[in-house]
């Protein structure tokens, strides 16, 4: 189903920030903003909920730590105990200091990789996906704000021009 959207282009991030605040103050719903670089404070201005990626990161870290403990216990204690440097692998606890670097590395490894994968999935990005970017100038020096149109095309256009947009256009968007 195609929906009608209005897109406003800006050429300055400060102007964009003010525009976002003004549009929000007029109680219009901003669907998306495309920027060439991360704009500090934009998420707060748009009223987006806080990211929960930190929580997933913590959980992935715990998972990595567990995997490291179970893995080293299986490899070094249960399956093939070895006497390295006069330290026979009788119990996990006796040899724990030697496993700490592995526990640390796997914690970081799991947290980092799974967090990136989670981020891509959550952002609905995967290989060979068609870019959603409505205007390729937003990868260079323009900022684009996109609002849904609900029979208030002219009113929105006036508002957007007023906020300092350099271009306003109405298009149909596939979704």
């Amino acid at each position, binding site marked *: 189903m195609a929906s009608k959207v209005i897109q406003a282009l800006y050429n300055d991030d400060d102007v964009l920030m003010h525009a976002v605040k003004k549009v929000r103050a007029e109680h219009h719903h901003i669907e998306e903003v495309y920027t060439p670089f991360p704009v500090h404070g934009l998420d707060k201005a748009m009223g987006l909920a806080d990211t929960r990626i*930190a929580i997933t990161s*913590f959980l992935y870290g715990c998972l990595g730590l567990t995997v490291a403990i179970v893995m080293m216990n299986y490899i070094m204690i249960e399956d093939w105990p070895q006497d390295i*440097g*006069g*330290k026979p692998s009788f119990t996990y606890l006796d040899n724990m*200091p*030697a496993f*700490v*670097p592995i526990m640390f590395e796997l914690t970081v490894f799991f947290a980092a990789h799974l967090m990136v994968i989670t981020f891509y999935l959550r952002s609905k990005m995967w290989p060979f996906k068609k870019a959603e970017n409505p205007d390729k100038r937003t990868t260079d020096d323009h900022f684009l704000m996109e609002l849904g149109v609900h029979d208030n095309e002219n009113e929105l256009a006036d508002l957007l021009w007023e906020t300092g947009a350099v271009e306003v256009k109405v298009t149909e968007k596939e979704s």
Partner: protein
Amino acid sequence: MYTFSNKLRIGSFIAMGLGVIFLAIGFLSAPSTVEEAKAMVAVHDDGHGGGHAEAAENHGEEQGHGAETANGEEHDSSHDTHLLHQLQNRPWSALYVAAFFFFMIALGVLAFYAIQRAAQAGWSPLLFRVMEGITAYLIPGGIIVFVILLLSSLHMNHMFVWMDADTVAHDELLQGKAGYLNPTFFLIRAAIFLGGWIFYRQYSRKLSLAQDESDDNSNFVKNFRWSAAFLVFYLISESMMSWDWIMSLDPHWFSTLFGWYVFASMFVSGITVIAMVTVYLKSKGYLEDVNNSHIHDLAKFMFGISIFWTYLWFSQFMLIWYADIPEEVTYYIARFQDYKLPFFGMLVMNFVFPLLVLMNSDYKRVNWFVIMTGIVVLFGHYLDIFNMVMPATVGDQWYIGLPEIGGILFFGGLFVFWVFTALTKAPLQPKRNPFIEESRHFHY
């Protein structure tokens, strides 16, 4: 301008008074003869169910007594003298640990301050006066530590075994180190280190105050250059200071990253105290422009440096544990056998606790959270110094009793009194620091 509140001033005096009394009791109750020492240990063991008895057999190996243990009969009497020295050392060590701990806080803050200056950090200038106030304690704290070291080299106590000519005469390892580890050179080095630190502190403070009144940035630029130069001096002198003042308590043992380890401890304690003083001043209505992003950043440093400390602690431990070379592992065997609770308790307080409590970004902005964590971290790092000093000086005769608490109270009181007096001397907000606007709008 900040005015020292009466309550805090009286509190600091009471702490100092109690501390002096406790320390005096500690010194007066130390045994002066071998018989008294033996009697004390016997009574102690009765009272505590002989908890220390099984550890007694291994403490002959510590310190410079390794060579003497072979001489069967002599051993008994040397063992008793050793016990006497340990018991006599206890009030001295309690004094030294507390004196060094509070001195180290001021030195850690000085390093943090110099880094902010040298990096021309934009977020921190609002906190410069707080840091300068804390580093004011360098002068009394440094002098007290120096006096304790001087008294040690005058044989008032037996903390540094290598200062005893008799011990050195029977110990080839110490003879080999005598070119570096001798009382004269030791005191000269201490004087150079302290002189350099105190000079930078005073000069930088002067420039900082002059910048307020000046109409260009020349004082600021000068401060930047001196800070960068100071950091070079500091990193070398701090490392040597940690060998001299702490590592040489175990003169046979050495660790190549000991300087970093002590640095991490002083750095995290210093940052913690900056955060605590800032939160305190804010709660009294001062430092209006300091916002919760500043607190958040300080807490972030507390979190990060706590983990850095653990990293160094573990690096030092694991290499020694894995290599298992007798002259190295004695250090950890003494701590594992006789210091289980402070040794592992310290790991919980300095690593697990800040890791879990300060991980969440929102908690770092909650003032009382930062204060509570700060108290635990400070006690943890007191224990860290305790674990570095006590096993070498008192062996298994440690106890956290009157002299230890007295030391904390006295130096804590003196620290609070000196720091907050220094804070009253200048406006809490620098006027003409070129980054003050950036600091005021700091937002994360």
